[in-house]
């Protein structure tokens, strides 16, 4: 059983830890409506990989992973949090920072309202602290339902604050990325959020604190080119698409046909860019193990 993990080359699968508890995130100021929001119309959905028709109830109960082929469907930040954090351990931070429209960009205010309605949150990232298997950690989750996880000034600010607070608290940071990139509607201000978040992570690193970046489907553009790539450890979910330039743009501008499997987590790992590919069911236990390795002042029953 234990031996298996040395031989499997593709994914790390750990049987030693208990199955993830489906905890409910509490201590938050908003109702976690997001899981409901994700349900497509009707009672079933077709798996894009194996074609199997899945009952949505079964899919949700399996953390939105295909029960047949283990294809990983997208999942909201709050649903992830529920899969990862110890019960009642989450404390949300900075939930009340509101986005402005500094460029008075055409249609931005309407887009924001739409996104808030769709995602059930006022901006595209959820931050706070929690425990994972008893280990305290600072967490951030990009929200795909909010303007495709794009990074505007508030997303940048919330991530920078979370990282700075982790330094104050001497805690590790885990960020789950999912993003189309920078947020066009905030122009250059959005672009510089890449620098802002990277700068904060630079300070975290200078403080010898751990940062684990988890890349989920899809992670592109300005987020890939900033905090998502700066983890001490980079984890990806299976079949997640990860890259700098989106495949459609590469095809259009370069007239270059991408090979099958390009920009998948597995492609990125082959090219040396990802440490670990971890299935959603093992994410909690894997993070717990990695966090424990880095816990300061904690003895692991050392006999050496």
């Amino acid at each position, binding site marked *: 059983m234990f031996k298996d993990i040395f031989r499997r080359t593709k994914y790390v699968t750990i049987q030693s830890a208990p199955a993830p508890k489906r905890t409910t995130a509490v201590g938050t100021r908003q109702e976690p409506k997001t899981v409901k929001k994700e349900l497509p119309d009707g009672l079933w959905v077709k798996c894009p990989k194996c074609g199997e028709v899945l009952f949505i109830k079964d899919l949700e109960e399996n953390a939105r992973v295909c029960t047949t082929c283990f294809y990983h469907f997208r999942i909201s930040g709050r649903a992830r949090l529920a899969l990862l954090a110890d019960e009642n351990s989450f404390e949300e931070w900075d939930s*009340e*920072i*509101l*986005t*402005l429209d*500094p*460029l008075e*960009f*055409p*249609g931005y205010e309407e887009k924001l309202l739409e996104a808030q309605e769709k995602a059930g949150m006022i901006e595209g990232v959820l931050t706070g602290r929690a425990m994972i298997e008893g280990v305290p950690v600072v967490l951030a989750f990009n929200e795909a339902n909010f303007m495709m996880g794009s990074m*505007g*000034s*508030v997303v*940048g*600010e919330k991530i*920078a604050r979370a990282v700075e607070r982790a330094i104050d608290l001497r805690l590790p940071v885990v960020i789950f990325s999912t993003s189309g990139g*920078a*947020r*066009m509607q*905030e*122009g*250059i*201000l*959005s*672009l*510089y*959020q*890449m*620098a*802002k978040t*990277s*700068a904060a992570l*630079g*300070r975290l*690193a*200078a403080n010898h604190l751990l940062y684990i970046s988890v890349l989920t489907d899809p992670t592109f*553009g*300005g987020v*890939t*080119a*900033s*905090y*998502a*790539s*700066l983890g001490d450890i980079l984890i990806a979910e299976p079949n997640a698409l990860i*890259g*700098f*330039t989106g495949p459609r*743009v*590469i095809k259009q*501008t*370069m007239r*270059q046909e*991408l*090979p099958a499997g*390009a*920009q998948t987590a597995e492609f990125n790992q082959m*090219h*040396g*860019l990802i440490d670990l590919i971890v299935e959603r069911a093992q994410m909690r236990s894997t993070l717990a193990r990695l966090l424990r390795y880095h816990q300061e002042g904690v003895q692991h029953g050392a006999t050496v």
Partner: protein
Amino acid sequence: MAQLFEFEKPIIELERKIAELQKFSAEKDIDLSREVETLEKKVSLLKKEIYGNLEPWQKVQIARHPERPNFYDYAPLLFDDFIELKGDRLYADDQAIAGGMALFRGVPVTVVAQVKGKDTKENIKRNFGMPHPEGYRKALRLMDQAEKFGRPILTFIDTPGAACDLAAEERGQGEAIARCLLAMSGYHVPVISTVIGEGGSGGALALGVGNVILMLENSFYSVIAPESCASILWKDTSKAKEAAAALKFTAQDLLKLGVADEVIREPQGGAHYNSRQTADELSAVIAKYLVRLRTESPEALQEKRYQKLRAIGPFQEKSI
């Protein structure tokens, strides 16, 4: 003669008329000096009118002008000495980024710049100024060395964006850019970033984490190319002009938004009308800021750069 833009044609027509008048005057030996003078005043006014009120889209055209001076044009005008250093020590030497050591007004500095080509052949060599990961890793290597030896860093931004092909993806374009951002934000030496042409998205930002961010008058610095923005917003790339206005990416916009620290004057009509004059303006403004930054302690340089980044991007906070 530089390639002309549509909006410059009234000026050129008037100038042609003056030339005709002068020729006629000379041939026929008729004194038309007052008429010529009047017309010249008119040209001068027209230039001020046109060049002084360029729309964002017109600035984009100037910034992308094929004869716009690039880093290699400015280097001998800006520096007393320049030694180009090559390679990322890992994979290749990317010619879309040039770097090395220079003497700037007697001060040893490290210089890193994106470089577009001037003709098709050179553009192919330089990938149209779009760096691959090896370019950013070369930049990082050279900037890290500047930090090691306590040398100020001058970066010059001029790129449509980072390379967006499969090779760039394979070699970690995102990682390469992100590493530049993290490293630059932490340096203890003065970093001055100047946009000299096109500042295209993350590929430009990778050299843009300065204590001071300067922009040439007709440069622009944008999160996305106006054509792509138009295509996303209105499914119509021909609306790039509208997108250019919406994105607020001119030097003047960035000054207002608190991202740029100063706009550097260009000769009337753009830098390509006089690269020496542009270099002189560049030199003077860079020198002004470098003097200031050199009085700061290493810790202050890092801290102030960090605080500058932290302050970019407004938001509203509910009091709880």
